[in-house]
């Protein structure tokens, strides 16, 4: 019983940040039809920026401790505003007419470049942003002690999911985005400014990646290599859930989180392997992922 409870709680916590990152990836795929390998690097940039900002904030005693969370949020916003339009307008735009696999390779090149850029800016030594982690104290669940921050992260993931769903389904601009996802040519013909939707959606995707990075930073040591593990995991989540599906990303993040937690508790050697096993199984049974709507074949 205790192990099952631990697996459940650990899986939930793991799923929370995974969902924030993966939903950004899936949104970018839905709108721009790009599977962005550089998403993991943007996560890393967010984590580094937040770690630096948090270090600066707590080092200088600028105000109450809890404002550190807003500093992290600000760091994620900064990354999104700086990187989103730059990458979309500066690079990706040039390749829209190419095959979707070629664009994957373009983002792979971006991943390589960003990887070295982060090393140049922040060096190779790990950063720690531990201050915000302890602020919320400890919580006891099923007789196990957890850090309160982890549950705040679950709350943040829920909030992100709900806001995103409401934003997409209950606002005019969200419905415009859905229209572009459905058919970009027709929406363009109806007067939608598709270019603007592309820039905004990509920037929002970057924001979600950076947000995931910023709020994960206090839990981990921020160092080179985190982008690879993040992109591999969020990639699996997005494929399992169905490319472009927000609900799918939520369910898949939960599945992946629980599978990983189960592996860590029961069979530590299978941690990475199990994620891909789940992904291969899902793809073999439902090639389009769990939540992908069927599309008509265009001849």
């Amino acid at each position: 019983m205790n192990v099952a409870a631990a697996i459940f709680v650990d899986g939930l916590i793991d799923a929370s940040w995974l969902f924030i990152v993966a939903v950004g990836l899936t949104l970018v795929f839905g709108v721009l039809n790009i599977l962005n390998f550089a998403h993991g690097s943007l996560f890393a940039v967010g984590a580094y920026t937040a770690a630096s900002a948090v270090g600066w904030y707590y080092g200088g005693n600028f105000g109450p401790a809890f404002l550190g969370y807003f500093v992290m949020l600000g760091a994620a916003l900064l990354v999104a505003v700086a990187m989103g339009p730059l990458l979309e307008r500066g690079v990706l735009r040039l390749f829209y007419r190419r095959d979707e696999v070629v664009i994957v390779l373009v983002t792979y090149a971006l991943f390589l470049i960003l990887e070295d850029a982060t090393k140049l800016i922040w060096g190779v030594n790990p950063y720690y942003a531990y201050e915000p982690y302890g602020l919320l104290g400890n919580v006891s669940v099923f007789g196990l002690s957890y850090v309160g921050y982890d549950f705040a992260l679950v709350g943040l993931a829920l909030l992100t999911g709900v806001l995103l769903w409401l934003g997409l389904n209950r606002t005019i601009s969200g419905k415009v985005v859905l229209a572009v996802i459905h058919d970009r040519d027709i929406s363009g013909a109806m007067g939608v400014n598709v270019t603007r939707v592309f820039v905004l959606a990509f920037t929002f995707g970057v924001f979600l990646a950076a947000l995931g990075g910023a709020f994960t930073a206090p839990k981990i040591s921020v160092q080179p290599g985190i982008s690879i593990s993040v992109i591999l995991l969020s990639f699996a989540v997005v494929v399992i859930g169905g490319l472009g599906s927000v609900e799918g990303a939520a369910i898949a993040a939960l599945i992946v989180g629980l599978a990983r937690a189960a592996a860590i508790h029961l069979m530590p050697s299978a941690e990475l392997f199990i994620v891909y096993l789940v992904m291969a199984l899902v793809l073999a049974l439902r090639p389009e992922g769990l939540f992908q709507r069927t599309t008509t074949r265009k001849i």
Partner: protein
Amino acid sequence: MTGRVGTLGAALLAFAALALLGRILPHWFVLVATLAFAKGLVALGLVVLMRGGLVSFGQGIFFCAGGYAAGLAMRSLGVTDAVLLVALGGALALILGLIIAPLLAGYRGIFFATLTLALSMIAYGILDKTYSLGGSDGLNLQAPTFLTYQPQTSQEVSYALFVLASLLTAVAAALCRIHFDSIRGLLSLAARDNEIRVEYLGASVRWVSGTNFIISGLLGGIGGALAALSLGHIDPDFAFWTTSGEFVFLAILSGYASVTAVFVAAVLLELVRSFSSQYFPNTWQGALGIFLLLVILFLPEGLGSLVRRRRRTAVKPAPKPVESVK
């Protein structure tokens, strides 16, 4: 028919030239070229797939299978013959391809790419934790022998391996050229352009994709065994996605127009890598990324298109501009 004989003749000439060159070139270059040829073989397999409109992000699984087949045969069975080891590597990858191909042949585009990626990452995950196969440290290989020839110095070994790699490269390139120009090879191009049309004409896209995948697996296994022999080492990183990404990089860089371009690109890339990792240890990946972006932007059909473009203009000069009628 003369086309086939011509292709094989050109391949043998290229092999002879390479074997002679290997005697003159410095030792380090021979080492780099052997590894480049090994990787070029894998990329050639990917080019076979790409002609059919599919890209695999998991060719590392075959590369790895070939390498481990060679490493295990050497460790457990005591086989030291390089020719036999490479054959074993190819055979294991071929069997793997035969098993996987029917499962994957129905998938297209991004789903094919992600499934192959998943499979190779599963292989990576398993190998990384299988301590009887060396875990993440992998296996070491000793210097191989070549049929009856037993090289004494390490220089001799690397030259002999280089000759073997050149031979395999030349033969594989020639056979692929012949395959590309055959009816089945041309069907791949048709499937790439429009699958539905190919199906209506009575051919099976599934069958074409499956065959291409098996060929790419065989080439991947041979390349993996060669790479393991030339490095003297094999570890799970052979199946890691960055390794597979490198093969996609190579295939895109060379394009699908020319088989020679694949190996030229492979040698170029290996040279760039060994120089820049020596002189710019922290930024060479980024440089590689910029290089890749530029190639995709300005040479959408790869290096091979350069050769073809020149040949075409040489044969057929540009038509004279027609005087405009007012």
